[in-house]
Structures are given as structure tokens and as C-alpha cells.
């Protein structure tokens, strides 16, 4: 988790005499150095792939895709926060609630259109994130975990205390998002919701990809690895950490707003304390600090309850065992991951890919020597 990533952009002179194999080094280098080009390609590619995927899936699976997409928005922000800036947050469930209630209040009571309402939920959550982040930047490890935990436990109380505004335990129900008439009358609502949520998720991925590959991302890593060295190098550590927390909160706000749109409801029951534990487990198991890891985590959050439900049914386990099975698996995987495999699923994938790549290169080199 605390591996220093040296990212010195060294300009290696290309051996001018040697024939460049198919112009590969030049193109590759351009590709490596232009983060924006890379991320735009990824943006368009992922959006197309997700759109195609949603066409292939049935309504139920489309809804799951929408769930995974808003979870991804939250997890990506949390993963960057923990994995790159080295801060922990158990309050992201509550931050999601802030985003969800903002979206629900604006859409349900004020009849705002979808996009401005989502922008507003990002904005409001960002403001909350600035406040929490400013406090968080003064806290370390266990203090920060405890403070954000208290935040996650305390915030839902507001929904009950001011039930006139927030609807108490019932929450605020909103109408489903209107499907544009251009898509035809038979376009399923679930698919439209999946499109909305995926658009949000892809935007989050685009923004975070560019940020983490910029000076901002490098300053986060520097602070994570050694705060004192970072201070000596001229970084203002509290500001760097507060920025990371605020951005992460903004992602959680968007995720929460999308959740309210997809579920057409914001209620305190959707944001229990255990949601924050689920989020933490998902980013750790998926792989900290990596966007693909967050995607793995989102897939786990959506699919695992289904799998354990099927498992419990096929082994005819008692209800209480089946109901607690996902929680038990998360707890077990959290502990195992931290003790034995801190880089998570994405770390495993990367190690596997690296192994295959190494084997291929070795074989090629051997072939060239023989030839």
C-alpha cells in the first residue's frame, strides 16, 4: 500500500540508427505522455461498451448495472482517498446520504430537472466534505477513522429529528426520471437509469484518472508516503489532504444522488452504518488506489448478495445464516486482504498480467537469439 511510485518522466533518446519497429516507440511514448488523450479514449470506449452492455442485459440486470455504476462513483473516490492520499473514511455512507437527500429534495419538492439536481447534490456534498475534510486533515489514522465513524452514526439522526423536511423513516420518494422521447416509447426505464448512472460513473472515472496522473495525484502520494518529507518539499500537507477528502466527498455525493434517482427514494434505512463498512470492504477487496479496483469492488457489492442468496437457497441454510453471509464474507476478506494480500483483486490481476507479459517477452527474446 505504501510503495513509492517514482514517476520521473525521463526522456530516453531513441536510438536514431536502429530501425524503429513499425514506429512503435514514438507512438507509444506519445500515448504514455498524453494523459488527456488516453483518458478521453477510455472515456469514449467505456461509455460505448457500457451502452452496448446495457442493450444486451435484461431489465433486472440493467438495474444491477445502475447499482454498480453509482457504487463505482463512490468507491472510486474512496479508493483514491485511502490508497493515494493515505486517509481513511468510514463516513462515506453518510456523505452518500447527503447527496441522495439533496437530489431527492430538489427533484421531489422543487421539481428540478435531473442534471442540475445532481450537480447540486455534488455541490452540497462538497461543502460538507470541505468541513469534514478540514477537520480530517488534522487527524491521523485511528482518530480519523473514529471521527468519520461518529459522523456516519450521527448524520442519519437528522432525518429523524427534522422529519418535517426529511420525511423521517419513510424518507423522500421521487418520480422516476423521464425517458427522452427520442429513445422510443418501449425503452425500458431500468436501461435509462443504467445510462444515467453509468454516465456519472464514467465522468468520475475520467476526472479521477486525470487527477491521479497529474501533479495533484503525485502530491497525494508524497503525503501518503512521508508527510514530513512532503512538507520539506514544499507541500502544504493539510491542504493536500483536505483537497483529497473534498474530492472524494464530491464523488460520494454524486453516487448518492444517482442512488436516489435509481431507487427513486432517499430514506435513512438506505444508509445504515454498515453501508460504510461495505464500501470500505469493497475498495480494500477490489484493490486500493486503483480505478479498476473500484470497478471490481462495485461488481462485488452488487453481485455478492445474489450469489450468497443462491448459495443459501441451494444448501437450504437457515435464514439468519443466509442473511448474514455477505457480511461475514466482507469481514473475512477485509482481514485476509490486510494480512496477506493488501493489493486486492486488481493487484492479483496486475501480477497475473505482469507474469504473462514477462513470459511472452522472455520467449520472444529467446526466439530472436535463436533466429
Amino acid at each position: 500500500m505504501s510503495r513509492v511510485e517514482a514517476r520521473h518522466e525521463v526522456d530516453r533518446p531513441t536510438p536514431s540508427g536502429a530501425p524503429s519497429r513499425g514506429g512503435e516507440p514514438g507512438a507509444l511514448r506519445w500515448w504514455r505522455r498524453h494523459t488527456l488523450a488516453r483518458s478521453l479514449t477510455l472515456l469514449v470506449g467505456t461509455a460505448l461498451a457500457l451502452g452496448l452492455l446495457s442493450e444486451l442485459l435484461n431489465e433486472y440486470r440493467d438495474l444491477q448495472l445502475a447499482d454498480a455504476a453509482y457504487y463505482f462513483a463512490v468507491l472510486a473516490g474512496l479508493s483514491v482517498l485511502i490508497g493515494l492520499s493515505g486517509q481513511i473514511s468510514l463516513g462515506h455512507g453518510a456523505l452518500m446520504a447527503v447527496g441522495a437527500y439533496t437530489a431527492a429534495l430538489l427533484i421531489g419538492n422543487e421539481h428540478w430537472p435531473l442534471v442540475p439536481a445532481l450537480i447540486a447534490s455534488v455541490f452540497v456534498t462538497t461543502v460538507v466534505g470541505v468541513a469534514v475534510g478540514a477537520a480530517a486533515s488534522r487527524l491521523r489514522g485511528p482518530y480519523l477513522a473514529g471521527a468519520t465513524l461518529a459522523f456516519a452514526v450521527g448524520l442519519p439522526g437528522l432525518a429523524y429529528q427534522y422529519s418535517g423536511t426529511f420525511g423521517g423513516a419513510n424518507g423522500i420518494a421521487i418520480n422516476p426520471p423521464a425517458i427522452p422521447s427520442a429513445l422510443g416509447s418501449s425503452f425500458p426505464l431500468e436501461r435509462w437509469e443504467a445510462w444515467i448512472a453509468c454516465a456519472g460513473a464514467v465522468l468520475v472515472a475520467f476526472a479521477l484518472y486525470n487527477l491521479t496522473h497529474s501533479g495533484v495525484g503525485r502530491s497525494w502520494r508524497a503525503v501518503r508516503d512521508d508527510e514530513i518529507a512532503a512538507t520539506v518539499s514544499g507541500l502544504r500537507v493539510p491542504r493536500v489532504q483536505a483537497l483529497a477528502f473534498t474530492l472524494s466527498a464530491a464523488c460520494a455525493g454524486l453516487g448518492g444522488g444517482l442512488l436516489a434517482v435509481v431507487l427513486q427514494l432517499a430514506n435513512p434505512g438506505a444508509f445504515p452504518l454498515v453501508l460504510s463498512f461495505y464500501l470500505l470492504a469493497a475498495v480494500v477487496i477490489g484493490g486500493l488506489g486503483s480505478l479498476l479496483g473500484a470497478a471490481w469492488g462495485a461488481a462485488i457489492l452488487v453481485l455478492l448478495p445474489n450469489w450468497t442468496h443462491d448459495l443459501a437457497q441451494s444448501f437450504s441454510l437457515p435464514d439468519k445464516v443466509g442473511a448474514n453471509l455477505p457480511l461475514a464474507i466482507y469481514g473475512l476478506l477485509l482481514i485476509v486482504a490486510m494480512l496477506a494480500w493488501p493489493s486486492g483483486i486488481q493487484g492479483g490481476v496486475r501480477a497475473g498480467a505482469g507474469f504473462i507479459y514477462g513470459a511472452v517477452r522472455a520467449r520472444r527474446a529467446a526466439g530472436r537469439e535463436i533466429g
Partner: protein
Amino acid sequence: MTQFINLTLNGISTGAIYAVVALALVLIWRATRIVNFAQGAMLMFTTFLAAIVIEAGNPYWLGLLVALASGLVLGAVLERVLIRRVESAPPLNAVIVTLGLLVLLEAAAGMIWGNTPRSFPAAFSIQGFEVGGTRLLFSPNDLFIVLVVFGVAGGLALLFRMTTLGLQLRAAAFAPEVARLQGVRVGRMFTIGWALAALVGSLAGVLVAPSVFVGPNQFDSILIYAFVAAVLGGLDSPLGAIVGGVILGLVLSYVSGYEGSALAPLAALAVLVATLMIRPGGLFSPARERRV
């Protein structure tokens, strides 16, 4: 006025519970520099064991004994098997492991005993004392709780100040390398520290169970309040944990009584943030430098 007195008395007796759990957190923090977020789940588990024993028709005191014994064993085993591996790792790893433990223990309890909270008997009558014709919100059982808490605090103070074991425990926590050179078995001291903390925690679980009921998630808020109390008093100070617990108990009692109980967790958050902003080391801690 009667309400104020009642809220004060109620605050002291609930604060005493927070104080005991905070004491458990402080013991573990002093020994291993880890905040044990699984403390609430650990005491939940041992209280469940006590509930099973009592439901089987055994006396209350046997249930208490079972809870204490299982707490002692649970703490020692968890330290030896899990926590030992993250003691030297970055602090975030230890935080995540204790959170994983919290989730796992709650899931296990739900699997074994179900998620519906069940009632738990009190040691003594929960009918409030009657003074001058008005019934106070302070029962013989509350008195028992307060006395037990101060007894435990006194006992631990004696253990740490007066015995060789206490000296070794403090030495291992204060300077592990030096203590090891002096022949203190530091690893064993850490295990004993965890076992002691879990013992104290399991006592708190049995004391608080009659008012919160026994269920997998019933002790989550106790953990939060205990953490706030421990930070308020200073994570390094056992005396601070007791004072912090009582202060927090009073604050939460007034907030619940005058404003509404839904705001109690937010009030705890406010106390925590205020403490960390004004005096990050807590009430009973000298100014602290950050270690390089």
C-alpha cells in the same frame, strides 16, 4: 428541576458504561497503539454468551462470570492470532483489520443467534429510588453499575501502579525495545493487555445489556461513545477515560432529554470535533509531538 436531577443521574450511570468501554480502548491503545474498533463487537459476543447461559435458567452471576471468562480468552486469542501481525504495519492496516473483525463478529453473532435483539436481565431492581415522594431515574442497578465501574477503575490503577505485572505492562507499552532488553516478555504483555481490555469490555457489555438489549448491532453506538469519551479524556490516560465517559454521559443525557434522542450521536460527534480542534491530546494529556 426534577428533570435536571434525573437527567444528571441518568447521565452518570450511562456515562459510567461509556467510561468502562473507553477504559478498554485506552488499555489497548496504550499497549499496542491500536484503536480497537472491534471492541463493541467483542463485548456484544460475550454478552450473547452470558444471555444464553442466563436463558438456560442459570443465575445472573454465572452469566456474568461466563462473559468475563470468554472476554479474557477472546481478547488473548485475537491478539495472538490476528493483531500480532499488524502491530508493526502502517496504522491504517490495523484500523482496517479491527473493522474487519467488527464486521465478522457481528455477522457471526447474527448467524448463530439471529438479528432480533433479545432482552437481558439486570442484576438489581431497575425501579428508581424514591426520594421525598418523587421517583428518581436512578435505580439500585444504576448504583451497582457506578460502583462496579469505580471498583474496576480502582482495581486497574492498583494493578498498574502496585504490581510487578503492572510495571511490566507499562514498560512494554512505553518502550518495547528497552523493556525487552530488561527481560520483559513484551509480546506476552501485549497479549495480557488485550485480554485485560476485553475482560473490562465484556463487563461493560453485561452492565449495559438490560437497557440496550442484546443483538448483533446493538452495541455499535456504545463503541462510538466510548471512542469519543476516550479521545475526550486522552487516549493515553485511564483516568481520562473515566472522566471523559462521565462527561460524555452527562452531555448526551442533557441533549437527549432537552432536544431529542435522535441528536445524541450528533452531539457526540460535536464533542469529538471540539476536543480534537481545541485540545487534540484530550483533557488529561500533556502536549504531544508527532513522531517522525
